[in-house]
């Protein structure tokens, strides 16, 4: 198990290295560049050339790359040119990442605590109106584009529910411990601040949660349907176990295998949804920074954030694979 983990982490290093090269090349292949993005229409050829020289973009691309790589190894990913000009990219990341984590975790928790029970009940009542309704609903959940849903939630529901429609403001006077606003509020027992942060999370999290929810629901339903017909569930019934024990120990435990994979994949995919959701709600996380970074051709910000996204994705998948061994003993002994 340990050897497996180490091997996967070494693979991850390779992935990051190759990806850094690709991202580096792709960004520079995009039309335009930081200079034209920053200077806009007012830019002259001379001013653009001067800015490019200042940013080091006049040098051959492989020299730029090795310089970037060298600095990255010391933990320096350069300074932002467009998102928060002049700020260190690492600082921007540290400042914004907690917001995205908070949003994603909240969204995935919503998706799981609604999706799994609903999937179980729908499977148990296969073919009833409840089942048909929730399957239809989940189809809509998958089909509605996130940005559209985010807009609807923001423009229509926010005012009706009295929830904030914009942003993740740092509440004035709130004490910061971890950078996770809800968590900070709880840790410092500043309940108002925690509640305020939670309210700001609510609508973006719903927008972000719809697709993972729909997918988790459908996979749970399918898995429970499969497992319910298994012989070992019949054995459990033949033992006269209570309905609760049959459900939790025999049906759900086995049905969770594909669901865990799905949750892992969805966490990886959340970042894509976060870009759209954060942009709509002006929620200052890394998703918003990515969107801004593309608009303003902020190479250093994009380079780091894309690579972090890749690392998160690979690490989450590794955790999913490792969690298999916890759930399924057949994998453990292999």
């Amino acid at each position, binding site marked *: 198990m340990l050897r497996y983990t180490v091997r996967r982490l070494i693979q991850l290093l390779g992935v990051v290295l190759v990806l850094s090269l690709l991202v580096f090349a792709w960004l520079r292949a995009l039309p335009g560049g930081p200079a034209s993005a920053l200077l806009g229409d007012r830019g002259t050829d001379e001013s653009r050339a001067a800015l490019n020289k200042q940013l080091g973009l006049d040098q051959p691309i492989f020299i730029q790359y090795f310089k970037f790589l060298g600095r990255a190894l010391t933990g320096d990913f350069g300074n932002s040119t467009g998102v928060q000009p002049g700020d260190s990219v690492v600082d921007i990341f540290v400042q914004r990442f907690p917001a995205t984590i908070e949003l994603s975790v909240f969204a995935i928790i919503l998706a799981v605590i609604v999706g799994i029970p609903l999937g179980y009940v729908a499977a148990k009542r296969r073919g009833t109106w409840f089942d048909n309704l929730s399957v239809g609903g989940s189809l809509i959940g998958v089909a509605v584009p996130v940005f559209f849903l985010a807009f609807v939630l923001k423009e229509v529901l926010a005012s009706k529910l009295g929830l904030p429609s914009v942003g993740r403001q740092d509440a004035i006077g709130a004490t910061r411990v971890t950078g996770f606003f809800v968590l900070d509020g709880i840790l410092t027992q500043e309940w108002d601040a925690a509640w305020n942060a939670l309210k700001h999370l609510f609508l973006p999290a719903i927008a972000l949660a719809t697709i993972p929810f729909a997918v988790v629901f459908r996979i749970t339903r399918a898995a429970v349907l499969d497992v319910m017909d*298994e*012989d*070992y569930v*019949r*054995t*459990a*019934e*033949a*033992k*006269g*176990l*209570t*309905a609760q*024990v049959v459900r939790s*120990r*025999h049906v759900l*435990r*086995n049905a969770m295998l594909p669901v865990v994979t799905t949750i892992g994949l969805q966490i990886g995919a959340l970042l894509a949804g976060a870009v759209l959701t954060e942009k709509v709600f002006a929620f200052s996380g890394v998703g918003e920074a990515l969107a801004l970074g593309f608009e303003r051709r902020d190479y250093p910000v994009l380079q780091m954030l894309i690579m972090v996204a890749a690392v998160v994705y690979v690490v989450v998948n590794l955790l999913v694979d490792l969690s298999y061994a916890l*759930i*399924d*003993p*057949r994998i453990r*002994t292999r």
Partner: protein
Amino acid sequence: MALLEVRDLTVQFQRKGEPSFTAVDQVSFDVEPGQTVGLVGESGCGKSVTSLAIMGLLPKRGAKVSGTVDFEGTDLLRLSDKQLRDKRGRDLGMVFQDPLSSLNPVIPIGVQVTEVLERHRGLSRKTAMVEAAELLEKVGIPDPTRRLTEYPHQLSGGMRQRALIAIALACRPRLLIADEPTTALDVTIQAQILTLLKGLVKDLGTALVMITHDLGVVAGLCDEVNVLYGGRVVEKAQRHELFAQPRHPYTHGLLASIPRLDAPRGERLNPIRGSVADNIPWDNGCAFAPRCPNALDICRERTPVQEDLGGGRLLRCHNPVQPEVPQEVSA
């Protein structure tokens, strides 16, 4: 009074947009305490559905069960789900056909044994574990303490079936239903499992309903045999009488189709012609008539009724096989 009295047990499956399908048709039989009764027939004759109906394990939607299943005077078909759960595993045990798929793959064997002890005998996990080890030992699993921590995939097929038997007998039920418990095992293991079952039910005084298509199993185990065809009991007899003088052409065919070691070389096997149809009608004549070598015109017109031949022998046939005249008399 019999331990189990099954009367006119009928199971119909209903699917949307399809005519209902009768899998078990007015089946009646008794099981005395400590007795071993066989339910014999080809695949699809309704023997497994009968056992699931007795245990209350048929799906609630889609299966219509009628008749009575009196167990120690209580009709199991009238019990609530909760009352039935109290009886299953405690008073009624069941062993299934495929030992690998019948054990939960992600839970240690130990938990799968102890959960039934915890449920019905209120034992703590710790005491239950001690007892589970004793149970595994009793069913012939070596090194039981280690096996308790292992998972089903780490056990051999024979071991798994032994573990399932241990689970079914953990609470010393008065009745054990074994649904083709040896079909998925290889032949040497089959014999071991049958010997084990035979010994255990004798020691514990448990009555056994043995469901099988294998007449060898019947010969070695059963006191009384019910032969099923098309969801109905076509012949019922004590084991010795059934083997000595099968009266129903179907029973006769089953016995005749067993390859014999003492048959002359090159002799062809004697299979029963045709195969079991999906939905066998008993409304117009005998369901076995299309495959029956003895079939008369009446067999295709009038449904045979069950006759009592005396001595606990029942037969449903218009033109039964005549008892063979003993050899020395004919000579």
